[in-house]
């Protein structure tokens, strides 16, 4: 009988060793993994001091926010950590935080459509009861209404107010008087006048006006408001009225008219991830075009990227020649905050947000980031920079639309207007696409 020559006692430990090492490393790996996946809280008070976290979306207001946070800490002893992942990563980071249930105490508000899932999941405090008091009087008329979710809104958010804002955002035209021949004191009264002015100043024939494809969902409703009321616009967003209404057809046709007149630069609408920054660069830095469609926040970008260039002004989108109503800028609440009611320090977070919206703090935002405040006191104070006066005017007649454009419709407008300007699609085809997109929503 042959014996197994392998000395057993000697081999056993060598077989066990990898097993032990593997088991050990697996334990470490799994525990690290579980630690990573575990729910944590962004707020805390380990050293007995209340700490709040603010997830900030805006780059332009980051410096002002940090300055105000320090000031608040000095005043109250509450430590504030401002986390600014940047505008492109903001929503993804907020989603990740919601999924891991480690939401910040306060976070920036964004478009209603993007924020709706957070509001529906209970990650936002309903501020309506608070705003009914004296706090509500600190905002210009219409500001709170614009961020109010009414009953049966198309996003399915329970009725309430989930965000407060220290910025009034309006959309309009930023124009260089020299490059367009437009006198800001006597701006064009109709779209025809505007097109004529842009055509006359289009010396190289390459076009003198630009709008980013991603901003057309704000331009088209502004055009449409010439023929549609806010109620009709809101009903269309909710799918209760058709996109094939004449008002929408005429709105898209205005864009076609601009293309036909040759005033749209390069005969196309810039797309891509950074389309609007590219449009702003084209205006503020390269001076390639004399007019752009942008939000009031664009002025803040101009100040940051081209501080020496101040010879420009803003104006509302002029009326169409056959307008039924005065045109109105799309109503989008500007920069603001949402309070997490499930945070450890929801009460303190609310107090901080209330403090941020006080006129003194709004003034810091307004001066540092060059934005339009929401405080009636500041708006009436006459301290608005000349570049923002057109936007300030536009903000007085903004659309108050309780429903929101769904993301499908938004994408369809972006893609549709690009195709329209390129002459690949007709207005009717774009309207058909919008109807389909509304159906998908």
């Amino acid at each position, binding site marked *: 009988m042959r014996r197994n020559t392998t000395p057993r006692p000697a081999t056993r430990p060598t077989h066990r060793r990898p097993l032990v090492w593997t088991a050990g490393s697996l334990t470490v790996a799994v525990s690290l993994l579980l630690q990573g996946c575990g729910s944590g809280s962004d707020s805390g008070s380990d050293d007995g001091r209340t700490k709040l976290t603010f997830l900030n979306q805006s780059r332009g207001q980051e410096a002002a926010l940090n300055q105000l946070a320090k000031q608040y800490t000095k005043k109250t002893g509450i430590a504030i950590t401002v986390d600014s992942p940047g505008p492109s990563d903001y929503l993804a980071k907020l989603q990740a935080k919601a999924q891991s249930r480690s939401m910040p105490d306060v976070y920036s508000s964004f478009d209603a459509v993007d924020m709706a899932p957070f509001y529906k999941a209970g990650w936002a405090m309903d501020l309506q009861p608070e705003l009914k008091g004296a706090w509500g009087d600190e905002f210009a008329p219409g500001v709170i209404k614009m961020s109010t979710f009414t009953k049966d809104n198309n996003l399915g958010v329970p009725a309430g107010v989930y965000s407060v804002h220290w910025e009034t955002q309006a959309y309009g035209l930023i124009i260089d008087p020299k490059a367009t021949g437009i006198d800001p004191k006597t701006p064009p009264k109709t779209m025809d006048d505007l097109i004529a002015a842009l055509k006359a100043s289009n010396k190289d024939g390459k076009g003198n006006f630009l709008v980013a494809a991603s901003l057309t969902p704000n331009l088209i409703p502004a055009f449409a408001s010439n023929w549609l009321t806010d109620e009709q616009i809101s009903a269309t967003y909710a799918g209760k009225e058709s996109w094939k209404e004449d008002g929408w057809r005429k709105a898209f046709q205005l864009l076609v008219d601009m293309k036909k007149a040759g005033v749209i630069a390069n005969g196309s609408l810039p797309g891509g991830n*950074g389309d609007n920054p590219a449009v702003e660069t084209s205006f503020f830095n390269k001076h390639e075009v004399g007019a752009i469609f942008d939000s009031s926040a664009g002025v803040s970008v101009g100040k940051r990227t081209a501080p020496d260039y101040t010879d420009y002004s803003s104006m509302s989108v002029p009326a169409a020649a056959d307008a039924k109503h005065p045109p109105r800028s799309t109503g989008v609440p500007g920069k603001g905050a949402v309070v997490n009611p499930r945070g450890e320090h929801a009460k303190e977070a609310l107090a901080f947000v209330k403090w941020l919206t006080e006129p003194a703090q709004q003034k810091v935002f307004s001066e540092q980031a060059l934005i339009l405040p929401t405080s009636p006191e500041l708006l009436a104070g006459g301290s608005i920079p000349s570049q923002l006066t057109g936007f300030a005017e536009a903000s007085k007649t903004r659309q108050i639309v309780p429903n929101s454009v769904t993301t499908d419709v938004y994408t369809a407008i972006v893609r549709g207007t690009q195709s329209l300007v*390129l002459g690949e699609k007709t207005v009717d085809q774009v309207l058909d696409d919008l109807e389909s997109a509304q159906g998908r929503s």
Partner: protein
Amino acid sequence: MASLQARIRGSRDLRRNLTALTFLAPAIVLIGVFTITPFLQAILLSFQSWDGISPDTPFVGLENYRFVFAFDAFWESMKNVAVFGVVGFFLGNGIALAMALAVNHIRRGRTFFRTVFYLPGVLSVVVVGTIFSFLFEPRSGILNHLLDLAGLGSLQQNWLGDPDFALPAVAAVFIWFHWGFGFLLFLAGLQDIPAELYEAAELDGARAWAKFRYVTWPQLAPVTTIVSLLTLLAALQIFGTVQVLTNGGPGSHTLVPTLLIYEEAFTNNRYGSAAAMSVLFGGALVLLSLIQLTIARRRSDA
């Protein structure tokens, strides 16, 4: 006696297998946690409705698949990505092979060209996108500027804004970005071909084309299989380049499934239909890879 031997052999095999499995365990766990589980979760999610935030994920049966099948943009994006696949496969690999042949042929400056040709692959996709956004700018872009300087002003284009040029422009950026990888592998493959084969071919009177056709190409077959498969998959999974340069535009001319899936999940908050798109698109990729590998295996067996 025989049974005892068999038992000893069996226990030795078992021990050996156990040792091997022990060493493989960390990898198996990691693959299980980070590859298999998300894959299965994606399949599960494709039958559910989820907005990415809500704790509720109700089952909706085949609703997401019905939605995707009726979604024109998805099929349009599939058509666009097929163009990227074809261009990446033929043109991308062709250029990489041509560059490898050229560098393999030269005696001086081989290290320089190897570094220069591989350099694009080192850059981040966002950097590449930003560089080419500047290059393709219709008014101040370097490309149009150079054309103007060369007296070819009539060839100036709105490279990313014109539907006729947007897809080819993005495809060109993709090729530039990815050629380094194929180039390096082809070069390594070329350097592995024994010189005797070329000497024998020369003795038989073979010229350059015959040497390539009957020596280089068959000897490179294993490398070609791997490179072409990986390039094809990279082309079909193109995302960052498109997102930064055109975001799928103008219109939907450069829209690709990965971008659409991203938009569906992170913009439209419809993770269920995004997962259904992922399953369909991922399934198509797996199928395509299997077909290509089968063809390559048959060719090498023949």
